[in-house]
């Protein structure tokens, strides 16, 4: 394998060298616990509070509304369980969608076992949730609406501001899992009526094992992780200062260059989509064509299976992913692809390519060339395909 073409940025991203450099001193020199009282801790504490400010500013939030967590999954679990517990006197009904990440869906299932009721909204064939459907689902005992900002598989961007508006008109709290969207597309929690928002550092060239929850000051929930008085007694555990600093650096870089990055990724994305659509028969672009993350390409190729496709791409140095059951331990094909109405065997042959600004047009062309050959080869082996 010559050069690696990494097209799995929705799974995780590389840490930018600037991010790594920003973290470094907090490992080796200013390693102190920022909660300590001696002056040696001052620098770590300042770095942490500066980081909080950077993230708050990027969302139009106040610094006191940012809580550092161990990642997107923790943020999602915290919101759902925290709101469920704190607002149960108002009701036990939660609204979400069928295409949320498992961090939301499995937590909802957990809550269902504990006496909560969850409405899982259908999506249309492009993966869109409509504000009207959300509104119809609201009941007097609805305490939370949680709809993802952008889907991690098919890249569809939901009408968040409109859903938030509906939520607020009915006095219901609104959370969005923005793990795939934060630092990729502009977000303003005020304008978009967002009360809570989850994000994860490693999805935007920051480090793994760190994330945050934006939570409006009006929301009052208890901790998921009890213990020390960190994060205003709402999230215990010694602060991961290097992680926090790295995540903020990544957020800062992303926001400083967001327009260019979006423009560049969109051009790459659209070129790849165009070539695949034109050159491979029996294929289907999954996700909304317009309301779409700038870095997401997701196709189904009929008559073939995803894992085989991935192996052959891998042999050509291309890192990609698939909603195929065969790549997951669970044997179930992607719940997202099923929710947008694909039958099992078509969902099986899906390919997700998620770009970053580091990719090039040449890479897109190489990937299109390879994908074309590989799909042909696998189809020639397929009992479902009659040439």
């Amino acid at each position, binding site marked *: 394998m010559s050069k690696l073409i990494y097209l799995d940025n929705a799974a995780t991203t590389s840490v930018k060298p600037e991010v790594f450099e920003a973290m470094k001193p907090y490992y080796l020199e200013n390693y102190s616990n920022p909660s300590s009282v001696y002056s040696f801790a001052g620098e770590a504490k300042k770095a942490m509070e500066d980081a909080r400010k950077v993230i708050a500013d990027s969302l139009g939030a106040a610094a006191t509304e940012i809580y550092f967590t161990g990642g997107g999954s923790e943020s999602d679990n915290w919101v759902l369980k925290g709101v469920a517990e704190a607002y149960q006197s108002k009701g036990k009904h939660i609204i979400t969608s069928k295409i949320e990440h498992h961090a939301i869906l499995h937590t909802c299932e957990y809550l269902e076992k504990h006496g909560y009721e969850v409405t899982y909204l259908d999506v249309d064939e492009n993966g869109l949730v409509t504000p009207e459907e959300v509104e119809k689902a609201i009941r007097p005992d609805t305490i939370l609406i949680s709809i993802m900002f952008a889907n991690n598989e098919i890249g569809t961007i939901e009408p968040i501001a409109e859903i938030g508006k509906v939520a607020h008109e009915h006095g219901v709290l609104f959370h969005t899992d923005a793990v795939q969207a934060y630092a990729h597309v502009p977000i303003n929690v005020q304008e978009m009526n967002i009360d809570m928002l989850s994000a994860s550092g490693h999805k935007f060239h920051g480090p793994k094992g760190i994330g945050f929850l934006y939570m409006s000051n009006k929301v009052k929930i208890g901790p998921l992780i009890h213990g020390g008085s960190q994060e205003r007694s709402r999230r215990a555990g010694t602060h991961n200062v290097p992680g926090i600093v790295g995540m903020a650096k990544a957020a800062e870089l992303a926001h400083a260059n967001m327009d260019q990055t979006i423009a560049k990724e969109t051009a790459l994305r659209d070129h790849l989509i165009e070539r695949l659509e034109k050159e491979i028969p029996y294929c289907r672009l999954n996700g909304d064509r317009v309301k779409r993350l700038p870095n997401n390409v997701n196709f189904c190729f009929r008559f073939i299976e995803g*894992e*085989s496709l991935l*192996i052959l791409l891998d*042999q050509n140095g291309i890192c990609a992913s698939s909603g195929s059951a*065969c790549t997951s*331990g669970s044997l179930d094909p992607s719940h997202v692809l099923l929710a947008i109405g694909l039958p099992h065997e078509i969902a099986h042959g899906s390919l997700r390519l998620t770009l970053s600004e580091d990719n090039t047009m040449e890479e897109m062309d190489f990937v299109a060339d390879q994908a074309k050959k590989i799909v042909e080869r696998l189809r*020639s*082996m*397929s*009992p479902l395909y009659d040439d």
Partner: protein
Amino acid sequence: MNYSEKVMDHFNNPRNVGEIENASGVGTVGNAKCGDIMRIYLDIDEDTKIVKDCKFKTFGCGAAVATSSMATELVKGKTIYEALEVTNKAVMEALDGLPPVKVHCSLLAEEAIHAALWDYAEKHHITIEGLKKPKTDISDED
């Protein structure tokens, strides 16, 4: 992918891909859970009952392709009675093992051979001792 070298070899250079026209027996099976589908074609000598040729088509994961390929290799040259002993275990062993989540894929290969043998036996009105009607034969649906 935690596949052995042998698996990768059979995945990359699958033996006996294709179809046999007017095959003596054809079996198509699918795994209801993962949705994968495998079809095996047998060309059997009427007199000796030896499998002269064997081909496959597979819609499935890397392990499914590799086990199909290996299964056809193992079956070729054997009598239909010996072919019954090409179990999923035998196929896995010949491939130097499979990751635990991929064991079911090798079952598909065993079942496809059985389904093809059953098809042969039915067409020729014989019974092959030890061969049961494959549960998962989905040829009809095709």
